[in-house]
C-alpha cells in the first residue's frame, strides 16, 4: 500500500493538485484497501478524484455508472486534456458500430464511464465480465432511492450487475442524500460491510437569502440593481430555456458594462462548451441558465447565485448554490420568490410522470403489440407511438421490466392481465406524484420560513451546521449593504479592432 505522502505525489503528478480536499484522502485510502465505501461529499468538493486517482493507481479497470451523459462526456474531455487518455464514455449517443469497436478493446481502458441504461444490455455485460474490474463506482448514488429527488429505476438493477461482475469493491457517491436515502443506497447495492464517509454539506461562506417579490417586473429591477452594485461572477437559474434567453437579452441591453450570456440543454454542444469556457476564463460576468449549467464546472470564484425561479426541491437548491464560493470566500445565494411561481415546478413535476390518460393509451398500445405477437419498437422509436416523453417512458418501462413482462424489447409472458397492471401502475404513479409534490411543498415551506434558513435547510441531512463566516441568512437580519465580496478587477472588454485583436491573439499570447 502507498504511503500517505506517496498518494499526494501521485495526485500532483496526475491532476496537478498539491493537497487533497476534505474527505478525498480518507475515501481513497479505503477504496485502495478494497473496501466498499459510501461517500457523501458536498458539491464542489472534488468527488470525482475519489475514483479517478484509484483508477490510475490500481491494476485493472474502474467502471463508473453515471446518469448524466453530458457530465460523462465533459469528464472524459477533461481527463484527456490532462493527458489521461485511456478513458471512454459509453452511452446511447455512441453509435452501435463504434460501441462494438470499443467493446473489443475494453481491457485497454483504465476508466469506463457508462450510463445505467446501457448496463442493462447483455452485449456490454458479456464483455465487461471478461475484464478485470478493480472498482465499481456508483456516481449520484441517490438516484437509487425512491425517496431521492432523482429516482432512476435502472439504478435498482445495479446490484445484479455488481454480482455478475464477481463482486468487485463498490464506491457509492452522492452530494445530497438524507439518512433515509443513505440507508436505501446501502441496502439496494447490498453492501453490509460498507464504510461510510459522511461529510456535512453546509457551506459557511454562503449567505442564504430569500427575497419576496410581486412579479417578474420586480425581479428584473432587483437583478439590474444588484448586478450594477456587484460585478462578480454570477449564475442566474431559471426553470425554462425561454426565460433564460429572454432575461439574458434584456439584461445585456440594460447593463452595457456587463458581459452576459445564456446556457441551456437546447444549445449545440460546441456553443455550450464555448459559453462554459468563456465563463471560466472570466470573459463573461453573468450566465442565465437552466439547471443544465454548473455540473462539473471548475470555477472557484463564483460569488453570486440567484434563483429567478426556485427549484422544485431542497436537494437541487443545495446543489445549485454549492457552486458559489468554492475558494471559501464570502458568497451570496438569493432566491427571488413570487407566490405565483409555484405553478412552474408543479408543471415540471407533472411532465415527469405520465398522466392517467397517457398511461391508459400507452398500455393499450403495448397490449396490441403483445396480442399481435410482436416485440416493442426500440426506445428511440417508441416515444411518439406511445405519446410519452423519455422520462415518462423510462417510468413505464421499469414497471414492465419489474413485473417480468418484457425483457429488452421482447415480451416474456404469454397471458397477461393488462387491466390489473394498469391499475397497479396508476397507483405507483400517484405515490410518486405525491412524493414529488411533498418535496415541492417542503421547498416552498422553506422559502416562507421565518426562522433561521440555514438551520432549516440542512435539518434533514445532518444534526448541526458550522457557524457562518459572515452574515447568516435573511431571517437572521441580513443586510445587503454589508456584503463586500472580493471583486476581481474583472477584465473589461476593450473594443479592439480586428487587426489589433489578431495581433494580440497570435503574437502576444493573451487577449485583454
Amino acid at each position, binding site marked *: 500500500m502507498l504511503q500517505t505522502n506517496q498518494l499526494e505525489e501521485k495526485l500532483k503528478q496526475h491532476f496537478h493538485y498539491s493537497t487533497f480536499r476534505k474527505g478525498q484522502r480518507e475515501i481513497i485510502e479505503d477504496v485502495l484497501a478494497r473496501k466498499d465505501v459510501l461517500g457523501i461529499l458536498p458539491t464542489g468538493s472534488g468527488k470525482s478524484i475519489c475514483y479517478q486517482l484509484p483508477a490510475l493507481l490500481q491494476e485493472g479497470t474502474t467502471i463508473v455508472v453515471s446518469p448524466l451523459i453530458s457530465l460523462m462526456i465533459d469528464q472524459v474531455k477533461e481527463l484527456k486534456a490532462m493527458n489521461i487518455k485511456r478513458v471512454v464514455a459509453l452511452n446511447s449517443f455512441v453509435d452501435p458500430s463504434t460501441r462494438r469497436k470499443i467493446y473489443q478493446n475494453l481491457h485497454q481502458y483504465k476508466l469506463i464511464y457508462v450510463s445505467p441504461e446501457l448496463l442493462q444490455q447483455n452485449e456490454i455485460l458479456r464483455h465487461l465480465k471478461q475484464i478485470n474490474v478493480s472498482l465499481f463506482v456508483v456516481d449520484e448514488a441517490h438516484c437509487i432511492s425512491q425517496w431521492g429527488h432523482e429516482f432512476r429505476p435502472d439504478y435498482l438493477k445495479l446490484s445484479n450487475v455488481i454480482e455478475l461482475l464477481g463482486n468487485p469493491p463498490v464506491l457509492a457517491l452522492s452530494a445530497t442524500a438524507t439518512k433515509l436515502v443513505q440507508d436505501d443506497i446501502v441496502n439496494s447495492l447490498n453492501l453490509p460491510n460498507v464504510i461510510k464517509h459522511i461529510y456535512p454539506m453546509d457551506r459557511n461562506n454562503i449567505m442564504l437569502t430569500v427575497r419576496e417579490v410581486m412579479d417578474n417586473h420586480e425581479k428584473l429591477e432587483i437583478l439590474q440593481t444588484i448586478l450594477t452594485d456587484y460585478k462578480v461572477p454570477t449564475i442566474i437559474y431559471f426553470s425554462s430555456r425561454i426565460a433564460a434567453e429572454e432575461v439574458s437579452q434584456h439584461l445585456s441591453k440594460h447593463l452595457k458594462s456587463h458581459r452576459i*450570456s445564456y446556457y441551456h440543454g437546447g444549445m449545440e454542444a460546441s456553443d455550450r462548451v464555448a459559453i462554459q*469556457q468563456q465563463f471560466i476564463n472570466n470573459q463573461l460576468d453573468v450566465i442565465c441558465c437552466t439547471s443544465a449549467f454548473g455540473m462539473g464546472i471548475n470555477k472557484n470564484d463564483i460569488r453570486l447565485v440567484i434563483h429567478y425561479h426556485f427549484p422544485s426541491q431542497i436537494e437541487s437548491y443545495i446543489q445549485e448554490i454549492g457552486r458559489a464560493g468554492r475558494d471559501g470566500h464570502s458568497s451570496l445565494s438569493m432566491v427571488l420568490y413570487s407566490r405565483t411561481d409555484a405553478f412552474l415546478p408543479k408543471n415540471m413535476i407533472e411532465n415527469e410522470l405520465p398522466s392517467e390518460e397517457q398511461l391508459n393509451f400507452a398500455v393499450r398500445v403495448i397490449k396490441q403489440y403483445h396480442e399481435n405477437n410482436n416485440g416493442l419498437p426500440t426506445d428511440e422509436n417508441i416515444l411518439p407511438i406511445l405519446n410519452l416523453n423519455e422520462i415518462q417512458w423510462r417510468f413505464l418501462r421499469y414497471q414492465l421490466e419489474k413485473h417480468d413482462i418484457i425483457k429488452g424489447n421482447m415480451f416474456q409472458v404469454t397471458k397477461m392481465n393488462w387491466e390489473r397492471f394498469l391499475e397497479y401502475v396508476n397507483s405507483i404513479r400517484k405515490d410518486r406524484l405525491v412524493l414529488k409534490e411533498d418535496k415541492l411543498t417542503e421547498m416552498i415551506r422553506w422559502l416562507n420560513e421565518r426562522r433561521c434558513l440555514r438551520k432549516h435547510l440542512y435539518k434533514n441531512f445532518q444534526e448541526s451546521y458550522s457557524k457562518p463566516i459572515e452574515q447568516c441568512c435573511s431571517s437572521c437580519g441580513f443586510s445587503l449593504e454589508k456584503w463586500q465580496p472580493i471583486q476581481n478587477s474583472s477584465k473589461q472588454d476593450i473594443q479592439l479592432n480586428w*487587426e489589433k485583436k489578431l495581433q494580440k491573439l*497570435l503574437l502576444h499570447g493573451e487577449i485583454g
Partner: protein
Amino acid sequence: MLFEALIIKCIQQIKLERTVYATYHLLKGKKSIQTLHDAKLYGLERYYGVYPSLDKRLFDSKISLLLKCEYIVRNSKEESFITITTEGIDWFNQTKKQVPIHYFYGHHNTDAFFFERLLLVIQTYTNIKMNNFSFIPITEKPEITNWVRQLYRNVGKNPEEILSTLYDELHELLITFTDLEASLLVDRFTGYKYYGMSVDQLSEKYELPIEDVPLLFMGMSQKMQQLIKQNQSAYPLLSLFIVNKQSTALITKTAQQTYHFLKQGYNIGDIARIRKLKENTIQDHLVEIALHEPEFPLSDYVTVQQQDMILHAIKEVGTYKLKVIMEAIDDTTINYFQIRLVLARMERGEEYATN
C-alpha cells in the same frame, strides 16, 4: 439577408422544374444523385452544401416570409412549385450588392475542413506557446485533430514561428474582406485562456440574422481558399490547410466502387451481378460519375450522333425535365439513361437559366 438571397438565387435558376425542396436539399448538401445533378444542371454548384446544419423549419419559415413579401409565388397548378416574381428579381439585384453571395465557390472546389483546421491550429499553437498542454479542443473530429497533430510533427514545433507566419498570412487575407467580416472571423478564434464567441453571441454583437453567421463563415472559408490557391507562394503555411483538392470526394462511396469496376473494363450488367445490385442502381452511379469525373467516357454509352439529337431536343424544349425532352426526340432507340448522361455532361447553367 444572405440566406434569403441564396434561396432566391436557387429558385431563380431552378424555375418551375423542381419543387421548392430541391433548393433546401441543395443548400443543405444532400448527397443524393438528384441533388448533385440539380446543382450541376442549374449552375448552382457554388451553393451546394453551403448550409449543412440547415433546419427544415427555418427553411419553411423563410419561404413563407418570401411568399408574403411577394418575391416568390406558388404555381397555380402545383402548390409545391415556386417561381420568382419581378419584385423578387429587383430585390435580389439590390441585395446581391450588399451580401457576399459571390464568396461561394462550391464544395467541389474547396475543402470543407479548412476553417476548422484553422481554428484548431490557432487554439493549439497559442496554448503551446504559453506552455499549456491541457486545453479542451474546440473540435474532436478525427479528420481535424489528426491533421493538426501531423502538422505539428512535420512542420512546426516552434510556436512563435508558426504563429507569426500565420499572422502575416491571415492579415494579408483578411484585408481583402470588409471590416465587419474580418472582425466576425477574429472574434470566432479561440486562443490561450480565451474562448471564441458562439454563433448566438456573434449574431447579437454584429446585429446579424442568426442564420447568416454560419453562412458568412462558409463563404469566407471558400473565398479564402480561392485566394490562397490563386497565389500559393504568398501563403506557404495556409496552403497546407487545403488538403482535399479532388472533386471525386463528392462521389458517394458506393458509386466509387462502381467506378473502380468500370475502369477495369466491366460493363453495367457485369457490375450489377458482381455487386448484387440492380442495373438501375449501377446506371445511377454512372450518372453520378459523369457529373464529377472529367474523364468519363460518355461516347461509350451515347454515340456522338445520339448526343447531338439529345442536345438539340433540350434546346428546343428549353427545359431539363426528362419526360419533355424524351417526347421531343423521334429516335426510339434513345433511353432515359442516355438523356441523363448527356445532361450530366452538358456545359450547362447560367446561360440557359438567365435567358
